[in-house]
């Protein structure tokens, strides 16, 4: 079902060269918005219809990854569309930009070779009212308006007296699971379709980030999703630092990596605990939870907050770590690392656990690429992406973390990747402790907090959290106030693929295991 305006014959526009139908564009920006740190981000104004060709012309186009698609409502009534792509071969990002009229239409990028754009276009349909022409399911993604079924056409009302059963699950659930709603459709044991409704945790964080005084942005960003707090605040700080042209001292970058890896480590331990809980391996669940708790208590001692909130500020870090704190990190993380390593072997040989994981919730490499998933979900499907390697930030240019990539694509593969990454994060923390002992103390630099942001400029920051790459995009208006703050969370990038990989070969009792093996956050996705 297309929106009435989606009929190309009814689209308001004008013909350009060759009689091709144009959509209701205003004019390409032609790179009007200057970008800070142009070495990392290239911004081009280009008509939307030409975006697929532009990417096809890109050198090594097979490694170009869809990263984000979002709209910005301009004060003059138009909407600026931005397609963000990762160019891993050169460690750069490419942003293509065009302007269309508000409440108008544009050619869907799903049809133009970016299948991952499907949910992003549906999100814009709900929030900005712009209609993607040629989209397979042009319905809003927002809560209450539409559902994110794997195949919406199939999710028709049930026939009376049939053998099909719908299981509603959520949004209120037992334990401490976040609010999200699933409609699981089964025939016998088999799951034949999944309906996923997001948005229950929507708090308008992007609007909040645009409204607060910019030095406070990392404090708001870390609350997008508590267990990704360091990654989000690092991405927010990175975006503002590039906007201001601020260099972060080496020691602050090392401390950022240290906090980032501690966050990844407790997340990976907590992930394994929850996965073991899903398969009924109760002792393993307790063992991993103990490790997670030890890291959280370490964070409370060294940073004053169990989830490391408040550690990242624009320009560096809030506080340095002295030798006593570094010793505490080393003395806590080393036994956690050894215990984690011992548990890896035990988990790998627990047949009752592995039986439930293998071949469950398989996401093929083709699907992972198609939906541009990120983080451990991507790496478990053979897609070698990691912002720490592809776009080094903080101290990762020197650290060069090893990528753990496996081919299986099932729950077992996702578990394996996060086991290996947990161990790798512990090793990185121990390496960073030694490097921090050698590095020069934090220089007393003037805080950039009193500065005003440059007008009509874009700043872009990113960080690899435990769930994948978090992206923060900041645009200022003419007066230097934040006009648009965009957050693309790793969870949002992965939920779309999750909805696709559940129906098919899985049975109802596999569902909690698949859900847990993805380990995504609703709050991060809903913002």
């Amino acid at each position: 079902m297309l929106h009435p305006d989606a009929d190309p014959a009814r689209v308001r526009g004008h013909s350009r060269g060759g009689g091709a139908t144009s959509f209701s564009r205003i004019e390409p920006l032609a790179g009007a918005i200057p970008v800070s740190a142009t070495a990392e981000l290239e911004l081009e104004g280009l008509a939307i219809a030409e975006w697929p060709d532009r990417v096809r012309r890109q050198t090594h186009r097979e490694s170009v990854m869809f990263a984000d698609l979002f709209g910005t409502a301009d004060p003059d009534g138009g909407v600026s569309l931005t397609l963000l792509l990762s160019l891993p071969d050169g460690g750069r990002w490419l942003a293509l930009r065009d302007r269309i009229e508000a409440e108008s239409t544009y050619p869907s990028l799903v049809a133009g070779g970016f299948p991952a754009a499907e949910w992003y276009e549906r999100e814009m349909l709900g929030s900005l009212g712009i209609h993607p022409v040629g989209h397979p399911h042009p319905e809003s993604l927002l809560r209450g308006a539409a559902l994110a079924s794997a195949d919406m056409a199939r999710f028709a009302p049930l026939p009376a007296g049939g053998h099909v059963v719908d299981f509603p699950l959520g949004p209120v659930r037992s334990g401490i699971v976040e609010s999200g709603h699933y409609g699981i459709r089964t025939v016998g044991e088999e799951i034949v379709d999944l309906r996923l409704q997001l948005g229950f945790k929507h708090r308008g964080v992007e609007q909040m980030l645009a409204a607060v005084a910019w030095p406070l942005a990392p404090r708001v960003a870390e609350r997008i999703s508590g267990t990704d707090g360091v990654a989000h605040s690092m991405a927010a700080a990175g975006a503002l630092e590039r906007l201001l042209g601020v260099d972060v001292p080496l020691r602050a970058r090392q401390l950022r990596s240290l906090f980032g890896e501690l966050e990844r480590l407790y997340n990976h331990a907590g992930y394994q605990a929850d996965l073991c809980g899903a398969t009924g391996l109760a002792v393993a669940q307790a063992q991993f939870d103990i490790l997670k708790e030890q890291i959280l208590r370490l964070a409370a001692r060294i940073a004053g907050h169990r989830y490391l909130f408040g550690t990242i500020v624009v320009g560096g870090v809030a506080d340095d770590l002295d030798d006593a704190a570094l010793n505490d990190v080393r003395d806590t993380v080393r036994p956690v690392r050894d215990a984690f390593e011992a548990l890896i072997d035990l988990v790998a040989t627990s047949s009752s656990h592995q039986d439930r994981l293998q071949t469950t919730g398989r996401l093929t490499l083709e699907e992972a690429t198609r939906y541009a998933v990120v983080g451990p979900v991507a790496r478990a499907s053979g897609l070698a992406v990691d912002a720490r390697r592809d776009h080094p930030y903080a101290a990762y240019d020197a650290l060069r973390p090893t990528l753990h990539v496996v081919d299986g694509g099932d729950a077992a593969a996702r578990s394996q990747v996060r086991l290996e990454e947990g161990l790798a994060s512990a090793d990185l923390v121990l390496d960073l402790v030694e490097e921090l002992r050698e590095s020069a103390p934090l220089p007393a630099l003037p805080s950039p907090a009193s500065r005003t942001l440059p007008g009509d400029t874009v700043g872009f920051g990113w960080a690899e959290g435990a769930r994948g790459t978090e992206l923060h995009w900041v645009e200022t208006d003419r007066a230097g106030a934040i006009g648009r703050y965009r957050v693309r969370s790793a969870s949002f990038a992965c939920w779309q693929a999750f909805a696709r990989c559940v129906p098919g070969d899985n049975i109802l009792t596999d569902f909690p295991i698949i859900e847990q093996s993805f380990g995504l956050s609703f709050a991060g996705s809903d913002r």
Partner: protein
Amino acid sequence: MQLTWLWRGLRTGVLTTRYPRRPERMPDGWRGTAVLQRDQCVVEGAPPSCVTVCLPRALSVEETGGDRRLRLDHAACIACGLCVAACPRGALSISNEFELAASSRARLISEHRPKGDRAA
């Protein structure tokens, strides 16, 4: 394999604590409840710098007649500590207390008038 897990669990022993029967103390420097020093606050500035930086609007100024009172709502406070750095007089601090349960919302509000006005 189940025996291996059983053995590991038994060897780990009991790690849960006796809280709340045995009180627990958070480490020094941990950001818990904000504390407003009654005799230090002068509610300086309009709005005061602590109110400006307070993201969840836990700090506010109430004005009745010529009387200005700083109000701290512990139910809204996220213990970020930004107000501590913003206060030029050191009237705000962060303690490592974390037990905030109260029987009514009114009990979660600290209200302080500037020095000298308290007789009213």
